[in-house]
Each structure stands twice: as C-alpha cells, then as structure tokens.
C-alpha cells in the first residue's frame, strides 16, 4: 500500500522542488529556436494539405466539383465528405460538427473539401479550383432571433444548446423589500484566443492506422474523436503532443486533426497542414459573445437582497463547449457575493455565427463584466465606496453560492479587496513636466500632449471554478519510472498532459523531485501511450496531473523503501529518501537509489481523482457542480483621452489566492499574461461579424495588446491552502483574466462618466455624444 498524504514525510527537502522559482526545462530550446512546435515538423515525401472553406454563413450545398482541382499539377488528392471513412461528425460533447460539410454549411469558414499537394502554394491554388455550388440561405445571426418560436432550427433539436436556470429564495418578495434597485444591459464581444502558433500538425500513415503530431490541449479526447471519424480503433490512432504555441481554450476542439489524417491515409504519405493567421481565425472556436440583462436589489446598507439575470451566449454554428460555458456563466452569475434570492437564466444558442467554445475564463468572464458593472452602479446609487459595497457582500468560507454549493475552501473575497486597496497607487503625473508621448494615450501616434487626459481608478473582483464540473469524471494519469543512468538515479515522468506554455512540465518535475529526493527528472513528451490526463483547461492541470504525479511518486517511493528494507533489513518507518539515497532518520546511508534500481527500474502508474466528485445541477440549478474556486481582485489605473476616446492603462494591481504557489515564477507569469488578455478584451479585441461574415480575420485588424499597451503589473500572491488539493494548491490560470476586464472598464467609467456597457470599449463609446 502506498503511503497516504497524512503519513510522516518520507523525503527530505530538495532544491528546485515544490515552491521554488524553477526555470522551465524547455526554455533553453525555446530561446535558441530549437524547440519543435507543431508547425516545425517535416518528413520525407511530405504533402501539404489545404482546406476549402465556405464563404457563406449559411447555405445549401448543391454540388461539389473537384475535377479542376485534381487536374492541377502537383495535386495528390482532393477529398470531400464522401471520403470521410468513419463518423461524419465530431464534437467535444455533442457530435454535431461535420468533418466536411455535405448538405449544409452553417458558418463562414466551415470546411467543405481538402487538397493534398507537393507545395503549400499548389495546394492553395488547387483549393481555389474546387467548385462548390452553394444556395445561400438566410443566416440566423442573433441569439434572440435564434430563440424565437418562428426561428428555423439549425440543428434537429432546435436552437438552444443549453439553458441553465438557477432559482433560489424568493426574488419577487425580495424585490418588494429592496431599498435600491439597479438594472443594466451589457455586451461582451467575441474574443479570440489569438495563440501565436497557428493550428498545425503532421499526420503519418502507419501499418495499422495513423500517427499524428499536433498541438492540442487533450490528446485522448482528440484520439477518441479522431478514431471515430477515421473508422479506426483508438489504439490505431497514436497522438503525440507536438510543441504548442499557446492555447487558451482554442485547441480543445479538433481543427486539422481529422483532415490531415484523412489525407495521409488516402495518399499513404505524411501530410502536413499549417494554417495561416487568417485561416486560424476560422479554425478554432472563440469566446462566446454575450448579452446580459441584470437587476440587482439591495437594502439601505448595500446588502444584496436579490439578483436577476438573463444572459444570452451566442454559441454559433456548433455546440463545442457551449453547454459547459453556459453552466459556468450561470454558476458564477451573481458574483463572489452573498445573495439570498436569485433567478439566473443563461442560454447558449446555435446561430450561423462562428462556433464559440472554450476560452480562458470560460463563461465567468462574461458574467463578471456584467455583475461588476452592476456593483459599481449599485455603489453609486447608494453613495457607497464601490470597494466597501463589495466587501459588505463578500462571500467567505462557509458561504453558499446560488447553486446551494457551500464553499468549504478558502474564499477570501474581502481580504483580496482590502489588500488591493492598501496597495499604493502609482504617482499622479507631474503637471509641470512634459510627458513622453509613449506614456500617454495614443502612444507614438502623437494624439495628445496631455490635452483631454483624465485619470480613473477602478476595482473588480471575480471568481471561477477550478476543474471540470457538472459531474464529469475528472482525473489524470501519471507514470513514474526511476532508473539508473551513469551511476545516478533518474526519474522519468510520463503523462498525457499537454504543455501549452503554462509550465505544467516544470511543475511535474518539481513535484517528482520533491517526492523522490532525486534531482535529475526528465519529463517525457506527452502522448497517448499513457492514460488520459484530461484537458489542459479549467485551471486544472497542476492540481490533477500534479496530483497524479505525486501519487505515482508515492508509490515509487514505497517500492524504493521496500527494496531498501528487503535488501538491508531496516524498518521502513524510519527511512527517508534524500539526495538520491535511502537514509535512516539520523542520516545514515542505507542504499543509493541508483543501486536499488540498477537492474530493475521502478515504475508505477497512478490515476488521480480529486476527493470530491461534482454533480450536475438539477432543474432549479441546485447542486454541488464545482470542485473548487479561484478568486482574484484587480485594480486598474487608466489615463483616458476623453476627447478622442483613447486609453493608456497606467497600472494593474492584483491580489490572487493561489492556494500554494508550486512555482512562483510560473504563477506570476499566469497572472501577468492573464491580465494582458483581460486588457485586450476591455480595450481592443473583437472578432467582428456582420451578417455572419467575419470582417477582421487578421492581426492587422484583430488587435492584441503590444508591449506598449501593457502597463506594469503589481501583484500580491496569497497562499491559503485549498484543503482538497495536493500541497494545498489551487488552480491559477483563469482568475487573472476574469476581473481584469471589468476593473479597467470601471476605471474608464470613473474617468469619463460614460456608461460603457460593452467590451471592448470603443473610442466612440468614450467620446459618447461628442462624435455624431
């Protein structure tokens, strides 16, 4: 039996273990350009795949003629839906998305045919020669229209992907008692993950199936869907996680996986597909655009008595993760506050807009923008300081969410806000000193030398669940092997957890080092040769795969100690691992690990499940549907040119509870990077869609923050142990992206007195009535 976590420690403290600022093991390869990303792969005889995509958001396909495309010199094959060997559709939750459309296309950019050729330009030109005869159909481009009774159903079960209704207490009664009521309607635009490494991969035919090297977030779910669509058993589909150039939710759904594999199987040759930036915008789901109508009621002291909301999430053409996003948006809809009475309705709909799904923050982002705007509005109506209002309503440990779930872990909402407010503000600009234009709104574009510039400060706090909720069997698997290399012990960590840039591999190595007291740890490439690790999503991998690594290491340690006892006859309870050796409590060397494993490596595989199973919500939205929660608060200081509507964010301050910072360097990186994405949503990032057509699929017109747009981030990390998790850690990745957006918009409101009810905030919104 392996020792439990409550057993006395069996490993001496190590350097570069848990809690240390350890450098990434892959950083050296990344700074020298030697790291292999999924677009950096090649093979002898490789062909290039290209995808024919629909120019229409909704159309019937009358016919597809590939004759001319096949005749282009250098083309090996052209495939359509008729060539899909297995299931015609795939999907993360619902298999509703065609591998290649056959009768109808439901969004602008939907794949219709594939080409493989000897050169990417040949493939591209041949793709342009595939003649698809479309009969355009009127698109449904608005969630409200999709819900209307008369709306034609885009899928057999209608246009509602998911409706979550949460009812608690007596809202009508509370409304009658409320002293102050504020209402507001808010909008969140369609944000793109904009990971820098475009969708890409290499499919290689094997004797019995296919091997795919791809950038993804969940190898085993790719494998499941891929095998089904290829009509192959899962073991015939081997997937290797190639270097991932960022993900942020955008690699949960399949993109080119089936396409490249189909082309490889048809041609018998390796096939490479690399999307360009434009195609990447069509190649993955986006953050759900949302319309949110809110009503908050409070008593005279500012205590919330009820919250009502109706939120529409536009899921676009296919289901993707809309259902789960809907659940998180609803579960977090009232904010990290004590609210006795709620009616919360969140819908995710099908439309003919681009499919939407997972993106960092996953539903919590949309809700937080609205409920935090409401809290500011309520504070103004009550004449209260907005931070004080939040503090008075703050959830704490032992409190209950509108779903009835009791918070048994840390919920330091008030503490985060108090610490944040205590942090010093950046200095006001010196009115007598001419400012460098790079420090002003507009930057080097030279739009102001100080004219029209006002400063604003805004606060927001947000939260999100960690892990997969709603009753999903959430687990991860790790295989740990200790062997001898040149007289030294070496640990190999093997999991299927996708390293997408967040630093999971660093943390796995730290945990192995800490548990085994062995410095040399190698993290093997993630592939499907080991059990599933689940998705690198939901801020869950450090907890879940970290837990699996810890658990497998404990099993390895038990075996090492057993061998030591067996060979040297000591009693095992007095032994511990230290610096690659088994030593007694008083430090006496019993055996080196290298000796214990020299002819017979120790290998153990363990699955880890968190100690709590989640459950689905019932028809009133009640249930323990989440594993735990992460909280973060943000304060934004902005300079706004109120005449031109241009903004420079001066500073973001943040306090986040991380449970335990396994690697503080990585934690800071998650916080700073997450805030940058929140800033992007606040100020500039939106996939613009008109009548179902994407207008800005490029980095020329879909703008993400540059280094001149990002201010310094001042962060404070709180470590309140999460009792359910290994080492007391908690998920870290998503909370930075949640409240940063509303904090910035709150600061903009403070500076401009404009309502600013939608993000991204456009210069027009700030200028308001001045323009026009």
């Amino acid at each position: 039996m392996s020792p439990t976590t409550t057993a006395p420690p069996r490993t001496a403290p190590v350097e570069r273990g848990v809690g240390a600022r350890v450098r990434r093991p892959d950083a050296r390869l990344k700074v020298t350009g030697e790291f292999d990303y999924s677009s950096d792969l090649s093979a002898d005889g490789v062909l290039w795949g290209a995808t024919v995509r629909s120019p229409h958001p909704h159309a019937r396909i009358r016919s597809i003629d590939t004759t001319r495309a096949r005749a282009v010199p250098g083309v090996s094959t052209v495939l359509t839906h008729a060539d899909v060997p297995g299931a015609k559709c795939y999907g993360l939750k619902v298999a509703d998305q065609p591998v290649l459309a056959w009768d109808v296309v439901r969004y602008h950019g939907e794949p219709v045919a594939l080409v493989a050729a000897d050169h990417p330009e040949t493939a591209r030109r041949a793709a342009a020669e595939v003649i698809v005869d479309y009969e355009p159909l009127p698109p449904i481009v608005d969630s409200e229209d999709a819900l209307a009774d008369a709306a034609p159903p885009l899928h057999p079960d209608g246009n509602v992907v998911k409706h979550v209704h949460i009812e608690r207490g007596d809202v009508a009664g509370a409304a009658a008692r409320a002293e102050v009521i504020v209402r507001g309607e808010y909008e969140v635009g369609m944000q793109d993950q904009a990971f820098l490494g475009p969708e890409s991969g290499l499919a290689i035919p094997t004797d019995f199936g296919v091997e795919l090297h791809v950038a993804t977030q969940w190898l085993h779910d790719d494998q499941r869907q891929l095998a089904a669509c290829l009509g192959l058993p899962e073991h015939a589909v081997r997937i290797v996680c190639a270097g991932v150039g960022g993900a942020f939710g955008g690699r949960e759904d399949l993109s080119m996986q089936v396409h490249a594999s189909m082309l490889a199987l048809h041609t018998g040759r390796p096939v490479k597909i690399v999307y360009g930036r434009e195609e990447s915008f069509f190649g993955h789901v986006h953050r759900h655009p949302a319309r949110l109508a809110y009503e908050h009621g409070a008593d005279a002291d500012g205590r919330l008595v009820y919250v009502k909301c109706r939120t529409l999430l536009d899921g676009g053409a296919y289901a993707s993760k809309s259902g789960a996003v809907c659940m998180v948006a609803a579960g977090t809809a009232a904010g990290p506050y004590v609210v006795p009475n709620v009616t919360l309705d969140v819908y995710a709909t099908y439309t003919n807009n681009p499919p939407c799904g997972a993106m960092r923050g996953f539903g919590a982002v949309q809700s937080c923008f609205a409920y935090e705007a409401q809290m500011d509005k309520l504070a103004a109506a009550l004449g209260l300081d907005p931070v004080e209002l939040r503090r008075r309503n703050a959830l704490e440990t032992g409190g209950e969410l509108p779903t009835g779930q009791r918070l048994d872990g840390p919920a330091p909402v008030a503490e985060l806000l108090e610490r944040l407010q205590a942090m010093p503000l950046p200095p006001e600009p010196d009115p007598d000193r001419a400012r460098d234009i790079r420090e002003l709104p507009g930057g080097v574009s030279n739009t102001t030398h100080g004219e029209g510039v006002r400063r604003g400060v805004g606060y927001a706090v947000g939260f999100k669940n960690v892990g997969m909720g709603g009753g999903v069997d959430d687990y991860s698997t790790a295989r740990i092997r200790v062997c001898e290399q040149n007289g030294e012990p070496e640990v190999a960590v093997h999991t299927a957890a996708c390293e997408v840039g967040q630093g999971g591999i660093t943390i796995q190595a730290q945990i192995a080092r800490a548990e085994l007291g062995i410095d040399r740890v190698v993290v093997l490439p993630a592939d499907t040769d080991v059990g599933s690790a689940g998705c690198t999503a939901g801020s869950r991998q450090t907890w879940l795969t970290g837990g699996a690594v810890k658990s497998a290491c404990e099993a390895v340690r038990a075996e090492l100690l057993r061998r030591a006892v067996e060979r040297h006859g000591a009693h095992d309870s007095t032994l511990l691992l230290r610096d690659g050796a088994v030593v007694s409590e008083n430090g006496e060397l019993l055996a080196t690990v290298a000796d214990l494993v020299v002819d017979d490596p120790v290998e153990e595989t363990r699955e880890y499940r968190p100690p709590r199973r989640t459950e689905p919500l019932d028809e009133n939205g009640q249930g323990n549907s989440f594993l735990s929660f992460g909280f973060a608060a943000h304060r934004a200081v902005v300079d706004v040119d109120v005449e031109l509507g241009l903004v420079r964010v001066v500073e973001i301050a943040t306090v986040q509870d991380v449970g335990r910072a396994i690697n503080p360097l990585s934690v800071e990186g998650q916080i700073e990077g997450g805030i940058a994405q929140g800033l992007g949503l606040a100020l500039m990032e939106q996939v613009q869609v008109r009548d179902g057509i994407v207008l800005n699929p490029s980095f020329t017109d879909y703008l993400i923050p540059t280094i001149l747009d990002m201010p310094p981030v001042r962060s404070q990390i709180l470590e309140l142990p999460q009792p359910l998790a290994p080492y007391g850690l908690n998920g870290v990745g998503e909370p930075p992206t949640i409240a940063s957006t509303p904090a910035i918009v709150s600061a903009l409101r403070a500076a401009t007195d404009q309502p600013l009810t939608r993000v991204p905030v456009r210069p027009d919104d700030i200028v308001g009535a001045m323009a026009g």
Partner: protein
Amino acid sequence: MRLTCTVNGERREADCAWEGESLLYVLRERMGLWGAKNACEQGECGSCSVYLDGTLVCSCLVLASQADGAEVRTVEGLAEDGELHPVQEAFVAAGAVQCGFCTPGLVVATHDLLERSPRPSDAEIREALAGNLCRCTGYEKIIDAVKDAATRLGSGD
C-alpha cells in the same frame, strides 16, 4: 530559382519551387532552420524576426530571392559554441518564456535593440519591441529580461 546566401556565417543554397516563397519559408522548410516562427505571416507579430544584412526584418515579408547574396542571421546564430547569448540567458532566467512561440523573434529584436542602445529606458524598450507580440506573458518578464540582458552585456565589456 536557386538562392545562395550566407546564413549564420555559412554559405547556404536553396532551390525555391515557387518564386513567391518568403525568406521565412525558405529558412524553415528548405534549410531546416525552424527558429523563425510563422505566427502571422503578415508582418504584424515579429515572431519571424531575423537580421538581413544586419537589419532587423520580418522574414515573412522578404521575398526569398531578395536574400540572394545577402547575409542572414537567425536566432540559431546567436549562441556561440553551445553557450547561450546573454540575451537568451536573460530570457530563460527572467521567466520571459512561456509557450515560446514569440521568443525567437523577441530574442533577435532584443539583440538588435541592445546593439543600438545598450542601456534602454522602459519607454525605449517598449517602443523597440512593439512589433513583437506575445500572448502568454503580458510582457512584464520580457521587460525584466531585456534589462537583465543589458546588465549582462554591460558587465561583459
């Protein structure tokens, strides 16, 4: 079309099957130098930054034939004898690398900045690196890395 140029001090030749191939494509697909990255191929992200005859450029915006006879230096050419360049060391140490797709471009752009301006101010760093998008780090640790690199290079004089 046959292209001959010097890449990282070595004479290299490549045959371009299509005259429209970019220097980025040739470096990657024909010379096996995958360090310059293909993030946008429209000059908006800087991840394909290389030196062309000593000038910092986006290699995606250079027609391969324009590099004929030129000297190209890529991220692969910065480390010497297996020793990381101080800029590379600084990026590793500062935690300025996450997914790393922007990193080669940023390393080359930082190298270029510090050649021209050994002690850049914050504002100067931000203006000089504004053409290099990063989606993971929020840039905070990149600024740290640039300053650290400046110190490392300064003390090495």
